[in-house]
């Protein structure tokens, strides 16, 4: 049962799991000193981390603005307290005031208990950056948990979920271990389904050379989110695109961002650039994945080992552009059920997709209701950064972490007749919300945004 001295923790990867992703776990008795060593390395590299350590004035504004604290009322889930878990160590070992004044300034000595505390709380932060959004200084606790998780990873402490995804990424270039035959078969099935349901002929070309556009779908679409795949396929066919899906990197996500930016994240970036090079494409279009879009848009330039020749945009950017130019014929009455939009955190706070999503929504849906708050002020679904653990304790915690989101959905009234739609254009949000809308009895179905666009297309 994953629990340590009363703290819930995700199921841990075994030492063999860790070795598969190139980490030799550090023995327990060496963990504290190694943690300090790694922390010393990292603090000299990231200014955002140093600022979070040194510039917080403890005003307390972040507390009521973090869904984890609102849902669990656990004091360590207050963003500044979460940062304090590592700040107290940082102060002790790397600042004068910490060395001299200890407990007065909140400094503490490192111990294995504290490292376990990191593991519990850094994996309850969904890295949604709402705290940065509301902080007077803009201090980003997400940066702290990125670094915290990276430290834990180097020590050999990583959730089994993340480690197995890391291994899958290295093996086949996507999170779900989808090999090429599976990709091809699923896409053939999708073509059949589109013909059955929409009467339209859509082909999904895989690894087609001399394509203009390389579309990167989320691999979760191949298992759980058929309408997202179908919507994208219909869109590209509708506009007459010369497009392809690469089999070597069929993954819009990048879990490396969430636990190992140095190695795992970089790995898939290289795969992507290799695929683009091989297929000779002109533009890369990203599918529906929140953290993945942030990892692609904001981190590819700084992680790549070569200059990037191809512009990268999100499918919502492209669809919105065409809607604004009146190039797409959409019939919103085809999506007549009441719809509310869950703004994925990474889209609205880290990637600027707020307006484009609404352009798609208003053109594709007849009864759209905003939740409160929405846009950049929106609250996380609770599953961000892959808090999708299914062991009993963490599953219960996920219910608490999604409580604020459930309140928001209920308040819109879209689910009161049991036929509402909760649009969540991000694979992790979908994976979190599929079970959570049942747990919270919200009366809604979870759909992606390109799903709705695909359904609304008028083919004439």
């Amino acid at each position, binding site marked *: 049962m994953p629990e340590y001295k009363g703290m819930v923790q995700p199921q841990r990867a075994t030492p063999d799991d860790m070795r598969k992703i190139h980490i030799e776990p550090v023995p327990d008795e060496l963990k504290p000193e190694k943690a300090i060593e790694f922390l010393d390395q990292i603090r000299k590299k990231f200014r955002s981390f*140093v600022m979070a350590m040194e*510039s917080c004035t403890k005003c307390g504004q972040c507390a009521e603005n973090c869904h984890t604290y609102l849902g669990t009322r656990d004091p360590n889930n207050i963003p500044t307290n979460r940062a304090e878990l590592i700040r107290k160590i940082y102060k002790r070992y790397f600042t004068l005031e910490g060395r001299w004044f200890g407990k007065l300034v909140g400094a503490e000595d490192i111990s294995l208990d504290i490292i376990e505390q990191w593991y519990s709380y850094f994996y309850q932060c969904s890295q949604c950056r709402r705290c940065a959004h509301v902080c007077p200084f803009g*201090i980003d606790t997400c940066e702290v948990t990125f670094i915290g998780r990276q430290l834990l990873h180097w020590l050999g402490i990583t959730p089994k979920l993340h480690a197995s995804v890391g291994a899958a990424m290295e093996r086949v270039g996507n999170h779900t271990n989808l090999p090429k035959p599976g990709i091809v078969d699923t896409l053939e099935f999708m073509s059949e389904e589109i013909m059955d349901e929409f009467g339209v002929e859509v082909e999904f070309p895989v690894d087609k050379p001399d394509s203009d556009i390389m579309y990167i779908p989320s691999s979760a679409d191949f298992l759980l989110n058929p309408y997202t795949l179908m919507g994208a396929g219909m869109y590209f066919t509708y506009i007459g695109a010369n497009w392809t899906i690469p089999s070597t990197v069929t993954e819009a996500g990048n879990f490396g961002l969430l636990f190992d930016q140095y190695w795992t994240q970089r790995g898939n970036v290289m795969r992507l650039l290799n695929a683009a090079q091989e297929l000779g494409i002109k533009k890369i279009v990203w599918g529906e994945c929140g953290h993945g879009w942030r990892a692609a848009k*904001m981190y590819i330039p700084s992680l790549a080992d070569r200059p990037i020749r191809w512009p990268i945009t999100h499918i919502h950017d492209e669809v919105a552009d065409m809607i604004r130019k009146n190039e797409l014929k959409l019939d919103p009455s085809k999506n007549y059920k009441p719809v509310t939009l869950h703004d994925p955190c990474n889209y609205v706070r880290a990637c600027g997709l707020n307006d484009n999503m609404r352009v798609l929504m208003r053109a594709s849906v007849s009864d759209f209701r905003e939740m409160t708050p929405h846009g950049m002020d929106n609250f996380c679904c609770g599953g961000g950064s892959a808090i999708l653990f299914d062991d009993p304790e963490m599953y219960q915690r996920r219910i608490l972490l999604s409580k604020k989101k459930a309140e928001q959905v209920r308040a819109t009234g879209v689910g009161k007749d049991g036929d509402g739609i909760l649009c969540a254009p991000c694979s992790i949000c979908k994976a979190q919300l599929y079970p959570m809308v049942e747990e919270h009895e919200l009366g809604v179905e979870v759909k992606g945004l390109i799903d709705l666009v695909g359904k609304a297309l008028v*083919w*004439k």
Partner: protein
Amino acid sequence: MKLLIGQILPYITVTLFTLGILYRLGRWAGARIVHNITLSPWLQTNGQVAVRIGSEAFLFRNLFRFDKALWAGALLMHFALLNIIGGHIVGFGTLGEEFAMIPGLGITPELSVEMSDLLGSVFGILLFVALLYLLYRRFALENVKLVTKPSDNLWLIYLLVLVGIGNIMRFVPAYHIHYELVYEYMAALILFQPVVHMELLESGFFLAHYLLVQILLIALPFSKLMHLFGMFAERYIVNRVYHDPAPGLPNIDVAAARKAGLGVPAGDAAEEGV
């Protein structure tokens, strides 16, 4: 005591303060902005960045959006503090006649001194009250209590004592300090002339106030008071100019594709919608 606090310590204070600030800022500058972690919405020009950072630093924009009570208290405290510090520098530097120097307003030196006195008194009280509010919320509000460490409370109490002594010197005639005394003292310090005999140093309240200020300055680089610089350093990381790459897919002609009936099964091309 007079010798230590009035003659020797000031030079140590300035040295330690300067070195401390340079050391801390140097550490900040040495760490890098590695990845692009700009927060949306995007700002399109450096002018917009300046406005955004300025409104956060001087008008406490985020506080206003999410916690109006804290915004009022914090803005009042910082604004009063700005005026007090500014008033110390400008007021003592011009012997209270700063307002007479503004051209065209016709303020006499005497009126200026009275204005300086009044503003100093008012802001002294406002600052004290605002600090009291900030300390109060650290005990009364559950969320703030949960994030507060002993040093957070200590700083507020420290500032209350410091400002309190300043207010006593302002309001209690027996302990009043004249502008000229401070002016002469500061001038001598800066010019490395001996000050230990000066009348100013006879005032116990002045020495106490002065000592507290110096300890604060020495401790500042090693405390959260560095948020003075931190505001700008952090805001510059998350609020910067960012331009999205242009949308537009290569070799796409949607009208032509629709005319050709792409996707519509052969034979249905003439039919109305699907």
